[in-house]
Every structure is written in C-alpha cells, then in structure tokens.
C-alpha cells in the first residue's frame, strides 16, 4: 500500500517538475515571440552602449604580434557573392572597382583600389570576434575612414556612416549593409582595408575592400563595400534598424 502511494507520489512529483519545466520554457518561447517583451529586453542595449562607451572612450583594441596571426581567417556570412555586379568586377580582377563616398558630404568622391593604396595607410594585427562566439587574429592594411571622410568633408547634420555592399546574404535580391556612428567612424583603428595578412583581401574575406571596425563584432564590419554614405539617420534605409543583421533582430551596438 505504502509502496503504491510512494510510487504514485514520486510520479506525481516527477510530473509536476517536468510540467513546470515545460511550462516555463514554452512560456519563455511565447514571450520571445512578443514584440513588446523583446522591446523590454532591448532596453539593455542602450545600457551596454552607454556604459561601455563611457568605460572605453577612444581606447584602441589590442594589437597582436605577427606570430599570433591565425593560420586561417575563418570566412563567414557571404563568402562568394554571386550578384551580377560583383561577378562582373571579379572577372576583371576588380580593376573597374570604385569606392563611392556620398550623402551628407561637401564633395562626393570616388576611389579606385590603386588610389586607396596611394593614400596614407594603417596596418594592424587584431582579433576578429564573431557574434557566434569564435575568434581569429589577422593583419589588416587600409585607409583610415577618418581620412576618407575628411577628404569628402562632412556636412552639418551628419551623424551616421552607412556601408553599402555587393553581397546578397539573404538571397532575396537585397544587399548587405551596415552603419556606425561618427565616434566609431573616427576611431583610429576604423579602416577601409584592402590587404589581409600582407596580400589583397581574398574574395571570401571581402575583396576588394572591407571595413575593419575593431571594437565591434564581425557583423558590424561589412565586406564587399562599394559605397560609404553619410546620413543623419538610418531609419529610412532598408529594414530601418541600421544593418542587415539588425533588421533580423541583432543589436545595432554590436560591441559585446
């Protein structure tokens, strides 16, 4: 008799625990589908941004010795763009490529890769941190974005820099894009990079030009960049959240 009672009590307990667990998790899943709840969770993003900005100021990301360069710089996201305009450029080894600088600038500019190579450059060996959690170290050479922006001259009202790219990561005819604010744009390690590990950036890592914004996660450092647009707000662009992954729910700050 006691045996039966004990068994059924145990089963009841087990059922209760399992039920509570399943209820809790499906509750979490239901909450994850509610925009209002996600908006509440997202209040942490401005806190991350302001506190981290306050604590880090304009400090440089750590730079590493050559001996620490990873044997393979793991490519991720788009690794071989198939958009017609990119394939046409690639077929000519990027000779016709031009980087456009436009938007809220006094003087819209255009640069070939050779013109960029002729400008003052910065070389840095830095760690690349993916939002997925992995890291690799690589060496980058490129033109500081501050030089390009200063050459074009910012107009009053300029607040953000948007990068437009050749690749169609979603596969729906859209194009990858990203945006940063002027603090990050003028950070000394923010460069438009044409060389990786001492050779032209390979296609898998963003040829012919990719951004390095060293204190950001990988998705904030777009590859295959063709246009740098200075804007006062990014809300009217594409999904309105300031970037390809941001439009998919990722945080715009992207610093952690």
């Amino acid at each position: 008799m006691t045996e039966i009672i004990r068994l059924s009590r145990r089963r009841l307990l087990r059922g209760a625990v399992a039920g509570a667990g399943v209820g809790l998790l499906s509750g979490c899943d239901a909450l994850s589908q509610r925009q209002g709840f996600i908006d509440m969770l997202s209040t942490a993003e401005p806190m991350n941004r302001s506190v981290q900005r306050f604590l880090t100021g304009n400090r440089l990301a750590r730079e590493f010795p050559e001996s620490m360069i990873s044997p393979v710089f793991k490519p991720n996201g788009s690794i071989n763009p198939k958009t017609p305009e990119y394939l046409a450029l690639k077929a000519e080894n990027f000779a016709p490529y031009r980087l456009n600088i436009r938007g809220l600038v006094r003087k819209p500019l255009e640069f070939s890769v050779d013109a960029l190579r002729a400008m003052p450059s910065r070389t840095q060996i830095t760690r690349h941190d993916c939002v997925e959690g992995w890291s690799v170290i690589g060496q980058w050479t490129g033109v500081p974005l501050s030089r390009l922006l200063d050459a074009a001259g910012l107009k009053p009202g300029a607040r953000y820099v948007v990068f437009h790219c050749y690749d169609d990561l979603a596969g729906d005819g859209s194009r990858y894009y990203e945006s940063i604010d002027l603090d990050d744009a003028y950070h000394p390690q923010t460069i438009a990079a044409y060389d990786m590990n001492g050779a032209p950036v390979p296609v898998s890592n963003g040829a012919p030009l990719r951004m390095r914004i060293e204190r950001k996660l990988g998705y904030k450092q777009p590859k295959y960049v063709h246009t740098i647009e200075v804007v006062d707000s990014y809300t009217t662009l594409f999904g309105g959240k300031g970037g390809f992954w941001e439009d998919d729910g990722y945080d715009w700050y992207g610093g952690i």
Partner: protein
Amino acid sequence: MHWINLLCMLALVGSGLRIYNAHAALYWGEVSHFDTPLFATQAIAGKDGVLGASRPGSDSALMRLGFPSWATIPSPGMGGLAVARRWHFFFAWAWVINGVCFLLWSLASRHLGRDLAMQRRDWRDIPKSIVDHLRFRHPVGDAAARYNPLQKLAYLLVIFVLPPLVVMTGLSMSPQMASVLGWWMDIVGGRQSARTLHFVAMALFVLFAVVHVVMVVYAGPINEMRSMITGRFRVKYPKTETAPTPAVQEAPASADRMETRP
C-alpha cells in the same frame, strides 16, 4: 531578492546555452583553434540513435544542437541567437543590479558579518562538518539555526567568487571592453579562455543550485521554504537534552541567536 536572483539565473543559463549553441565548442587562449577545441558538443552516432541532436518539435527535422532545445531560451525555431542575446543582456543587468542590492542589504543588516563570515571556530570545525555531511548527520538545536562552515564557504563562493568571475569573463568577450581590460585579459589568457571560464562559472552556479535544492529538501522543505518566505524557522531540539521552553522554538531566521548550545 533571492527569487529575483533565481529568475535571472534561469534566464541567463537558458539564453547562455542558446548562445553557446551558435558555436558549440570551447577553446583556450585568445583565438579559436577550430581543429583542437577544449570541449565541444557535437552530434555523434550512439547506440540508441544519434546523440547530441534534437527535434525541437515533434514534427520538425532532427537538428544538430550543442544543448538540447528544452535547455535553451529560446528554443530553436522560436527565435535565434539575436533573441537569446536580448534575453542574456537584459537579465545580466537585472542580475547584477539585484546582486548589488543584496550585497548592500547584507552589509547594512550585518547578515554578512554575523551569519556568513567565517569565524575562527568555523575554520576549526571544517573537518567535523565534512564528517557530519558525509554521515548525513543533521544539526539539531541552535546549530541548526546557524550556517555550518561548509555551507558558509559555499555561500561565500557564490556571492564573492563566482559573480565577479562570471561578470568579468562575460565582459572579456566584448571587443569594445577588451580595449580596456588588457591586464585582465592577460590573467585569463584571452577571449576564448574567458568564454570557457564563463561557461565553467555557469556550470558551478548550476552545481551549487542543485546541491542547494537537495539540501533544502533534505533539511525539510516545508520548514526551509517557510523560513525563506516568512523568516520563521523551526528548530528541533534533541529529546535527551533539556531544551529551553518550549521544546519547539520559533526563531526568526535572521534574529539574534544564542552563541552557546543549550
């Protein structure tokens, strides 16, 4: 504060495991040596089918997952890494703010100094306490109303050692924060080491929680839970001793206690 803490911890562990699943391997050092991870959870063929893979729904396809869908917030298909990160950062802030409030309260109320700090007697009693634990000998009388030395050490670990470790290793994964954490990054050995230690700290928190709940259940769940909610804790005195009247004494859990045994 305890229950806010539990809520935050559940959210943090669940969303953390979902974040881990985005790249289900841990490394030591600054970078990921993809071929030689320290620890990885991957799908392998086992005796009873495929191990390390789950079906998030009864009709969905088998997915290769580091941690199964029941352990992650959100479950696969109900939101991805982006949503898990939203959960994680929100509850990280809530957990830290709640923890700081707890710390201030414990200092002000002298809970910390009176109940938790290791006294000279506690250090001396450690061997005896270990034996008592191994023999499942439960303290009676006033000793039951005090924290035993092993219990104190466990609490001190989850209050003063693991939280700073988990916060610092969490921040070490931020490329922005890494720009000011150079000295600390040298100590932990790099971003991937920090990610691994963050995971280890999580596992220790979970281990603590499991032991904590087992001890509560073992010590009498109704009495313990009541004391956690109302502050009243019933203490049993051994029959052979002449207990102070009455035989069962109601003592507020955090009130002054007699330092001498009856």
